[in-house]
């Protein structure tokens, strides 16, 4: 770390600072500004200031859209993360087992879903879930008879589960790769010593493997939880947030980002959704800061 003249610092920093300031930071400030207006389709150019009214209507009652959407999204994250983690962990443990041969082949084959562009993942799964021509119902008819069919995208609960399934497909490889990397760094002497002391496979897993995986799993879980909270492509492209029971209530898979996207670019409620964005952002930034402080990263950055 060295001291340089202020002018030099400025020259080095300015491209990034000016760029980030104009293209990233200014829009966020502008978003806060819009959140205090009634800008929408009818007041697009001639909007007026309405103070905190948008925030009030956002948080007014416990059955407001905000809480419904947020609750759905939390439930979605709470179901997804243990599934991603569990499947990723099983796959990593299997890949790391000394009895398995052709490891490179299995590893690459299992990472493939991560490499597929997420909008293509969504559009392909959308076709799988189709009630008539969808592959899943074609398979189901083989077992259950020619008239059968499961309501993959038409029933609210099934639709929710379908989005979980599509997200599981594209998200488990991340955990698998992280856990596999951590597994390979555990010294084998630990297991040998435990074996000498008479520990079985189960005990070794709970007492050695899991505690030593924790430092790798925790940040991966936080990162994946934030990404899952921000799910848009899979939900919007597969169900557009539906099925909808009534036009006035959020749909069964209308998670936070789907709701924001629909309110902004289909209903054009810019002022209202800008306020929504501010509240969601404060929550996300809180989680990010908290997890960084937790892992000691912020202090290290400050050196």
């Amino acid at each position, binding site marked *: 770390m060295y001291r340089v003249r202020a002018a030099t610092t400025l020259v080095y*920093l300015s491209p990034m600072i000016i760029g980030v300031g104009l293209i990233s*930071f200014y829009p966020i400030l502008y978003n806060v500004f819009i959140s205090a207006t009634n800008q929408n389709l009818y007041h697009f150019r001639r909007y007026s200031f309405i103070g905190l009214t948008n925030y009030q209507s956002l948080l007014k009652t416990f059955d407001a859209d905000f809480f419904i959407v947020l609750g759905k999204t939390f439930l979605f994250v709470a179901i997804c993360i243990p599934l991603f983690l569990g499947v990723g962990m099983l796959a990593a443990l299997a890949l790391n087992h000394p009895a398995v041969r052709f490891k490179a082949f299995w590893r690459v084959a299992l990472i493939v879903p991560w490499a597929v562009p997420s909008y293509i993942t969504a559009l392909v799964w959308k076709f799988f879930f189709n009630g008539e021509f969808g592959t899943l119902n074609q398979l189901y008819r083989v077992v259950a008879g020619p008239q059968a069919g499961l309501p993959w995208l038409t029933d609210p609960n099934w639709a929710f589960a379908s989005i979980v399934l599509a997200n599981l497909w594209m998200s488990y490889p991340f955990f698998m790769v992280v856990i596999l990397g951590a597994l390979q760094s555990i010294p084998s002497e630990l297991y040998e010593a435990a074996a000498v002391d008479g520990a079985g496979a189960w005990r070794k897993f709970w007492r050695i493997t899991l505690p030593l995986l924790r430092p790798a799993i925790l940040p991966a879980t936080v990162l994946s939880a934030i990404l899952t909270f921000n799910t848009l492509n899979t939900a919007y492209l597969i169900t557009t947030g539906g099925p909808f029971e009534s036009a006035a209530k959020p749909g069964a898979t209308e998670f936070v980002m789907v709701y924001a996207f629909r309110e902004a670019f289909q209903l054009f409620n810019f002022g209202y959704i800008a306020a929504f964005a501010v509240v969601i952002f404060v929550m996300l930034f809180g989680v990010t800061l908290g997890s960084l402080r937790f892992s000691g990263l912020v202090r290290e950055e400050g050196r």
Partner: protein
Amino acid sequence: MRILARFGVPALLYVFLSAMVIFALFPAFFVVQAAFRPGQSLYTLTLSLWPDHPTLDNFTYIFTQIPFPSWLRNSLGVSVGTMVAGLIGSATGAYALSRFRFAGKQMTLILLLAIQAFPSVLALIPIYLILKTIGLVGSPFGLVLAYMSVALVFCTWNLKGYFDTIPRELDEAALIDGCSVTQAFWRIILPLSIPALAVTALLMFLTAWNEWVMASVLLLDENTYTVPVGLWGLQNDYRVPWGYFAAASLIVSIPVMALFLGLQRYFRAGLTVGGVKG
């Protein structure tokens, strides 16, 4: 019990791994077979895993009858633009954040972190309104600007993380020997960072190449579409055979998947944060 340990465990492992591989690869296999399937033959109630009469018609169609070649060109232009501008705009700033001591540094880092925590879908709302005011909605240049809002912060953060791992003694020794700060940056830091610069650039390219949300809002005319927006429109129409979408998906995904799989051994903590899945 010993027999189970000798043969049972490996057998169970292979059964599990095979089931996982079928789960992982079936969608990819499905797209491949659909791409070679003629016309409406995918729309049946019964399961059929391979077309009776495979054909290349879908590929000919997307290259001659719809603006797919323009979509490819547009995607390439937008992605390369984002990648180059992101890297050039962030490299010196990342160096300053890694090596210089100056007032307000902690604040800058926290602000960058805050911007990165702002989800791109939410940032799209003000960006759309601003681009609308200055008349750039519908233009690929506006889309590159929108992508830059993510790219600059991402590249700065990544490169700073990498510069931090280069031993400080190297450039400090050069400075003591009379090297200028600029020389230390160009002659020592940048050459040592070529792998990190390449990985960051390619991640940026992939992110832009695979981005659907912003492009779907900011592009209006079919001829300016990037591939994701074009493909979305293609499969949204039930009169259009799904085979066209499948064929186009294959062409678009295979190179970037190869790139991604080639790159993934470079993904360490610092290089995955904030990127890749959009």
